[in-house]
């Protein structure tokens, strides 16, 4: 890669990430609403466990599950669907006509999206600790950081792959996105230990990065969390690394393929499809 191309690539990443890092956190009322409403939903699940008389560790499990929601929501709505919004607003054509490589655009979206989600996640954890008195104890911080980062990279590379679909489809893709919320909450064991799903379902659920990442984080952060785990955090880190590699290469290839297809079929700039 030439120096000028690399610079262009980095500038495009910075420009796209800037919108999310600065723009996404500029309006205080927006941030409050965005972090406040998910915390309210999460509280409902904590009250269920309290009403059932479940051990306190399950409340921690809900808080960590809730803390991962902004990332999944970010992948679905700020990554996968982003090209849909851009297409509807007429920006996608402009992006494609600009000199920047589309992969840099995706990477910028991913980096900015991760930052935006991280802010919301930290707030959920603070609420969990201060209001619900969840006990967290970080042991093996190195492994925890690795599992968390690999979860992020695999999740957002999955989002990058999904976003390419909008070169071809419109509302159908959007609808698919909508039904990937609650079913993924279910399969990734967001509010309960994923082992409750049973062997067959959990094997299927393990193909979703959120499942393994959340399970690993819970084992490394919750007091007694290892007893609720599915695989060891090291195994989960390896699986997440493999997913990151596959999804990233898949995303780049898919992007090239669908971009070409979208141009040929004229669906790239087709609004209200």
């Amino acid at each position: 890669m030439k120096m000028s191309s690399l610079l262009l690539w980095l500038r495009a990443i910075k420009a796209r990430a800037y919108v999310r890092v600065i723009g996404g956190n500029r309006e205080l009322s927006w941030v409050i609403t965005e972090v406040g409403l998910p915390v309210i939903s999460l509280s409902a699940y904590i009250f269920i466990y309290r009403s059932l008389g479940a051990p306190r560790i399950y409340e921690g499990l809900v808080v960590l599950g809730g803390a991962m929601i902004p990332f999944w929501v970010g992948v679905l709505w700020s990554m996968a669907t982003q090209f849909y919004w851009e297409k509807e607003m007429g920006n996608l054509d402009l992006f494609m006509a600009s000199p920047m490589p589309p992969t840099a655009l995706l990477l910028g979206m991913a980096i900015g999206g991760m930052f935006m989600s991280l802010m919301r996640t930290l707030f959920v954890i603070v609420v969990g600790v201060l209001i619900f008195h969840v006990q967290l104890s970080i042991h093996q911080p190195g492994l925890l950081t690795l599992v968390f980062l690999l979860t992020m990279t695999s999740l957002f590379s999955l989002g990058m792959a999904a976003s390419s679909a909008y070169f071809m489809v419109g509302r159908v893709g959007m609808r698919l996105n909508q039904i990937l919320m609650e079913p993924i909450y279910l399969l990734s064991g967001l509010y309960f230990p994923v082992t409750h799903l049973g062997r067959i379902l959990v094997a299927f659920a393990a193909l979703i990065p959120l499942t393994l990442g959340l399970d690993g984080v819970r084992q490394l952060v919750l007091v007694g969390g290892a007893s609720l785990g599915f695989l060891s955090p090291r195994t989960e880190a390896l699986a997440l690394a493999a997913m990151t590699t596959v999804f990233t290469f898949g995303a780049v290839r898919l992007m090239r393929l669908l971009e070409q297809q979208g141009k040929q079929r004229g669906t790239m700039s087709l609004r209200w499809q």
Partner: protein
Amino acid sequence: MTRRLARAIVASMKIGWEIESNWTNVPLYILYEAVRPLSLCILLYFLYKVVSASPGADPHFFAIFIGNAFFMIFGALASGLSWAIISDREHYQIIRYVYIAPAPFVWTVIGRAVTLLAVALTSVLLTLLVGRWPLGLPISLGGVRWGLLAMSLPLGLAAACGIGLFFAGMLLITARHSLLLAEGVGGVFLLLCGVLYPTTYLPWWLRPLAWLNPLTHWVEASRRVFGVTGFDKPLGALPDWELLAILLVLTVVYLYIGWKSFLWFEHRAKRAGKIDQATNY
């Protein structure tokens, strides 16, 4: 006048149905709409496994399942109506054409609500079927108290419409919070209405909000329809007639507030020039 309104509602229902469903065929669309509520009900099943190896045989879980199944109607309506405003204004940018049509705007919104309610009721039916067979819950046609269902369901739907109208109106003057309101309102009411746990588990200062909410009483009545009693002690102490009377009064109040608020928000939106303002967000 009545005939014109009826025509407006029917036309709005048809438009709503086309906008929601014409991207696929009808059976697939109905299944699509049921996936989200079904997932949440099954999620509760696995969550309940923390305290019971066989949630299907536990009356407490049955109460949660039924409450959640019926509450989903409100969730679908609140988010559906909000999305209708957002998509008409922002995505398709047709709100000004809908607005200048002869029928009052509020009636076209109500038409959309009726379509959403019909779809949501189908989802409830599918959820109950899943509860009956894969999950093994004691749901049977013979065990349903049809009289109570016939009285409580219309009241619950009307109350849900009233609250839905309030938030749909609010979206007419809101830009950046639109999506969050659309998805978040259901969560707030889920917390408050004693759907997943008795209202007594709420902090004391939130309990009056729960008891003054028609959805709380509707969920309790829906449980009684399937023979579930005693889930929520304070509400369980009320006889059926008293529960229905409270539900009726609260429904009328919420419907009135929802209606008036919508008209007020609409007026504000017109005054501020926001009725068709696309924010590109």
